[in-house]
């Protein structure tokens, strides 16, 4: 119960726009939930509701066993938050930043300093600890921000788009740190628009669109939901693309998708590896030369697009940005 997170029917409106429109969440202690959605879907607003930065218009939520509206201070003691835009004080050194956060959590100054040094060491910032943080690179600022969220071991961590704007090395470093944290049993709620990130870090994913959860499940379940396995072939000669498509149509459960520029044909199938060998034999018999062939699951990208594309971006989205400056998605 200590690390768990429950939300029922959360609603938050900004003027006419229902930024969060009846969100239910349930993350067990030690669980990792990824909120996946396009810009303006309501991910950041949901995090702001759960971290006591906003009051919900309707619905209830408990974080680490404390109600976010009735016991905000107890919630704040139990959570760590790392936002979309790294909230570090640019005129303070890395060390001063962490020390200040530790003291505001209620640590005495010696404990806060000691904890700051440990975290600087952990996040590879020891060499830069006495430099003013405005001289840090984007990746260093992000790591400092994450360290700030870890000063007092939080039972629930909120990471709002942790790797936006990071170079690949910094992103991997950040993911390692996050995985460490999860391995130690911290409950984690993560928002992201990077499917790769959700796939790697989250055990459960909730796809958010227009303030509502439109799908949820493990990455594997979501991929299965979007149509199971596909056979994809890459032909060696462009003129063989159409014969290949005609042949694959006989094996697929739906009409094949042809990507002419890339020279690929893919088709959803039921049948797995044995079917793959049959397809290879048939293609070979027709004299179609292949560069590549494979059996694969749909990527989360395909799942994501399938789930969100039938709801067109309407004008309400623009109003979210205009009417609510605090909405940062």
């Amino acid at each position, binding site marked *: 119960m200590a690390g768990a997170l429950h939300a029922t029917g959360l609603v938050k409106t900004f003027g006419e726009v229902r930024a969060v429109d009846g969100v239910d969440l349930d993350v067990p202690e030690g669980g990792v939930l990824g909120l996946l959605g396009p810009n303006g879907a309501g991910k950041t607003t949901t995090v702001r509701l759960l971290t006591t930065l*906003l009051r919900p218009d309707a619905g209830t939520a408990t974080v680490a066993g404390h109600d976010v509206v009735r016991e905000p201070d107890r919630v*704040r003691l139990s959570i760590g938050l790392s936002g979309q835009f790294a*909230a570090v004080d640019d*005129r*303070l050194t890395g060390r001063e930043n962490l020390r200040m956060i530790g003291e*505001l959590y*209620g640590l005495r100054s010696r404990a806060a300093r000691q904890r700051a040094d440990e975290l600087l060491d952990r996040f590879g910032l020891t060499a830069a600890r006495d430099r003013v943080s405005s001289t840090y690179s984007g990746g260093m600022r992000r790591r400092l921000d994450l360290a700030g969220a*870890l000063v007092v071991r939080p039972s629930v961590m909120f990471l709002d788009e942790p790797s936006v704007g990071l170079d690949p090395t910094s992103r991997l470093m950040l993911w390692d740190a996050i995985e460490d*944290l999860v391995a130690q049993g911290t409950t984690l709620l993560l928002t992201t628009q990077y499917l790769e990130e959700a796939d790697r870090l989250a055990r459960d994913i909730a796809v958010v669109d227009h303030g509502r959860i439109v799908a949820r499940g493990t990455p594997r379940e979501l991929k299965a939901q979007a149509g199971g396995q596909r056979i994809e072939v890459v032909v060696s000669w462009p003129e063989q693309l159409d014969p290949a498509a005609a042949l694959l149509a006989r094996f697929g459960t739906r009409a094949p998708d042809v990507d002419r520029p890339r020279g690929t044909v893919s088709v959803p199938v039921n049948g797995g590896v044995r079917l793959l060998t049959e397809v290879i034999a048939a293609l070979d018999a027709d004299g179609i030369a292949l560069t590549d062939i494979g059996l694969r699951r749909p990527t989360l990208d395909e799942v994501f697009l399938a789930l969100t594309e039938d709801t067109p971006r309407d004008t309400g989205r623009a109003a979210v940005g205009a009417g609510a400056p605090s909405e940062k998605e």
Partner: protein
Amino acid sequence: MNVSAAAPSVPELRPGTAAKSLHDVLVVTRRNVIRSVRIPEVLILSLVQPIVFVLLFAYLFAGSFSLPGAEGAAAYREYMMPGFFAQTIAFATASNSSVSMANDVQSGMVDRFRSLPMARSALLTGRTVADLVQNVIVVAVMVLCALMVGWRIHHGVPRALAGFALLLLMGYALSWVGVLIGLSVRAPEAAATSNFLWLFPLTFLSNAFVAPSTLPTVLRWAAEWNPLSATVQAARELFGNPGLHATGAWPAEHPVLVSVVWSLLIAVVCRALAVRRYASAGS
């Protein structure tokens, strides 16, 4: 390596207690003082302009000004200095607190602070206490400048200190005005611009540089009841500088009382509004 091994599971200071609130204010004050020290040119530049004005007024204009109760250039120099103390404090405080506060909102620092288990008012109070520290420096520099142009105290050090205390109290109240503005605008630039809307009337529609008795009725009434006028008048009285005792206006007759009441009223009202705004920010 273990991220959390050495983290104390229970912080030593519990939220909601008076000790924790005081501690939070001190932590935030220290942070703001460090920020100011890192970019000292902000404070230095904010002092250059008033010093230039003091010199201009003292050597260029003082000979042309003759006020009831302060005839002659030497008397005008002594008359104008409490006005400059008040004006410099007002501008330095209000611009510093409003722009810094708006910066904290824009940079996401306010979100960071609001997600921490700290006292609701600590971020704001820490801002105003840091402004108070800055105002002590401002006053010290302005006193040196004043002594150079011939300003003196005539009723002893204790009364002079009381005069400075009233000026600093007014500065503290205006710092809360700045905090409220900083939390209410959407960009630091807006905070900087909005200050001119109220600081110029506050400082010039007063007895700081002219005698209210020379103004048309409505303006005179505004100048007489201006909180800054009361503080300037009280400071003149406590420093023993030439003033305007014969105007007959009630605030001018009871400047110390009026100054204290105004400052406390402004501080209490703006603090309440600012704390409410901070607690509900974004909702």
